[in-house]
């Protein structure tokens, strides 16, 4: 009799523990806090942290789940990202999802691991290839290069009426992915790429590139550069008197990039992005709370991570494996409504922001809903 009672008590304890574990939602944050993409990684981390521990106004008040997290620095390095993944899997509570690093190379290294462990990998990376490998465990909450580059090219060609485009891109996976997409969209829109050149992240002096852009006869410049290189290009282009419209990549919407430049150096410069929390009146509440909590300016990567974590929390309340729930969910986020296209691309909209030369805060110049689909038509 004592044995039966002991076994019953043990079963009850086990059931209670299992129920508690189901209430828990452990989300490792694998983000580059150091290294070349530390700025973007810190934005990503801060957005996720705000979603996991929101004040009432910013997040989900219901909270039937008890979220917990652990932050792992991937150092903008695929090898460190893989190590971080393995360490995250060894946690007491087995994670059902992880937030992956923003750099495409690290994400590519993590994809097979996510598939093997059946862990949903949330991403805010724009590298197009991530969702083209048939992996059912990746969910990208930042529009891929296919989407934002379509918006960038459409704005230059259709809104600014430019036909001869100079393309300057970073010689990284991010830059090459954007270069490929931009070239394709520019030509499909009936314009021509008259100049194309790549720049290493270590290049400080851009005067040679700027002189070549001028010599090429281009009537607009499209950039696909990281934050520092974008600011260097703009600063030196202003110094050289390059009077061409410039439409940059998402790095140029970041408040930290604009802070490096004088407002006059930003005059007439535009940038694609998924959202602009610091500039969009509709996101003022998020921006205010983010500033209070994180002591920094929010950007599109922070908001994408915030929306991604909230979508994962919503999916975690649904029955069945998390990846299957994320594949089915339609999540109304702050930046946009997220829904998988069957490949794990959840974000499909983009905006163009432009600076007026008087301040470092841009205004939204154009909103594009599914710009890649319209451009294809």
């Amino acid at each position: 009799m004592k044995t039966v009672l002991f076994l019953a008590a043990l079963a009850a304890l086990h059931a209670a523990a299992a129920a508690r574990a189901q209430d828990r939602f452990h989300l490792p944050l694998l983000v580059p806090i150091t290294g070349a993409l530390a700025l973007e990684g810190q934005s990503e981390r801060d957005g996720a942290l705000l979603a996991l521990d929101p004040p009432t106004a910013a997040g989900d008040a219901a909270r039937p789940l008890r979220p917990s997290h652990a932050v792992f620095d991937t150092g903008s390095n695929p090898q460190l990202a893989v190590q971080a993944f393995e360490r995250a899997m060894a946690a007491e509570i087995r994670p059902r999802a992880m937030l992956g690093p923003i750099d495409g190379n690290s994400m590519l290294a993590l994809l097979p691991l996510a598939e093997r462990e059946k862990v949903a990998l949330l991403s805010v990376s724009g590298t197009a290839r991530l969702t083209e490998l048939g992996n059912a465990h990746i969910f990208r909450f930042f529009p891929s290069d296919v989407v934002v580059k379509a918006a960038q090219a459409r704005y230059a060609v259709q809104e600014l009426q430019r036909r001869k485009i100079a393309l300057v891109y970073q010689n990284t996976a991010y830059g090459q992915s954007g270069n490929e997409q931009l070239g394709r969209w520019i030509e499909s829109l009936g314009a021509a790429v008259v100049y194309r050149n790549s720049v290493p992240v270590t290049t400080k002096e851009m005067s040679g590139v700027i002189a070549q852009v001028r010599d090429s006869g281009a009537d607009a410049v499209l950039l696909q550069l990281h934050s520092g290189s974008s600011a260097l290009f703009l600063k030196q282009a202003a110094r050289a008197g390059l009077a061409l419209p410039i439409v940059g990549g998402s790095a140029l919407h970041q408040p930290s990039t604009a802070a490096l430049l004088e407002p006059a150096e930003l005059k007439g410069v535009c940038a694609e992005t998924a959202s602009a929390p610091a500039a969009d009146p509709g996101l003022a509440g998020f921006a205010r709370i983010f500033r209070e909590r994180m002591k920094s300016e929010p950007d599109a990567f922070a908001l994408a991570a915030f929306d991604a974590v909230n979508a994962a929390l919503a999916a975690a309340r649904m029955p069945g494996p998390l990846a299957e729930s994320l594949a089915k969910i339609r999540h109304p986020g702050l930046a946009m409504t997220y829904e998988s296209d069957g490949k794990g691309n959840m974000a499909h909209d983009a905006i163009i922001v432009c600076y007026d030369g008087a301040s470092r805060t841009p205004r939204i110049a154009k909103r594009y809903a599914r710009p890649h689909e319209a451009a294809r038509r």
Partner: protein
Amino acid sequence: MSWAQIAIDGLALGAAYALVALGFVLILNAAGAVNFAQGDLVMAGGFAAIALASALPLDALPVPGLVLAPLVALAGGGAGWIVAEVAYRPLRHRPPVAVFIATIAVGIMLQHGANGIFGAAERRTPPLVSGDAVVVGGVTLSLQSLAIVATAAIVILLLHRLLERTQLGRRLRAAAEDPEMARAIGIPVRRLTALAFALGAGLAALAGLLLANVYFVTPTAGLAFMLKAYIAVTIGGWGSLRGAVIGAFLVALFEVAAGRLFSASLADALLYAALLLALLFKPEGLFGEAAGRRA
């Protein structure tokens, strides 16, 4: 954009590289080992300037960066002295690899320290002088670039005078060339080695102030400066101060000119190809009499 402006930009970049390379050689000669933290000391100098600028009322001054320059150089010098005492002195009798691994560790600590204090974003130091550009003979030239060249030239001349014309300079050179003999004749080698570290780090910090206004600074920016200094010193002659300066200008002008003629990516590749050729055909560098002893 004219070649004149590109040349000025190249000279400004070369002037800042020259300060980094000079500091690199000073420490190399004094310690007999490469200071791999030199690039991170450049980065630290940039952030020190940013911290000092936020603490001082510089906005109204016409020369905010010039006011900061001696303070930043002093702060860098202090950091160099600490590096000497922590990462060099306890290890000086071990194989040289111990010192350079210690300096790598110092560099990584500086990176993480800067990331923790200032964050990962690019930051900018105040300009050396207020104003954007001057027009000379119809060519628009950046005032900052000209100020960088002038500041670096003055510092290099002062350093040259210190090393060649003063008793302290002669003692520094003696301690670097033959520490045992110098010690035997009563020269305080330990203190002079620490002073060489302080001078080298002070130059690096000053370069950080000069570079970070035009090219910005991040906690991870040091590696690129370290590599450029290394290439400059290899081309100029391992251990030669004159070679370091000339090597730095050659590296910068090559970088800018090749970037104008070809592409920035190709310019980088060509620079490393030139380094390989230099190592193959003139391993002692342009002025590298001391190469055999110090490499």
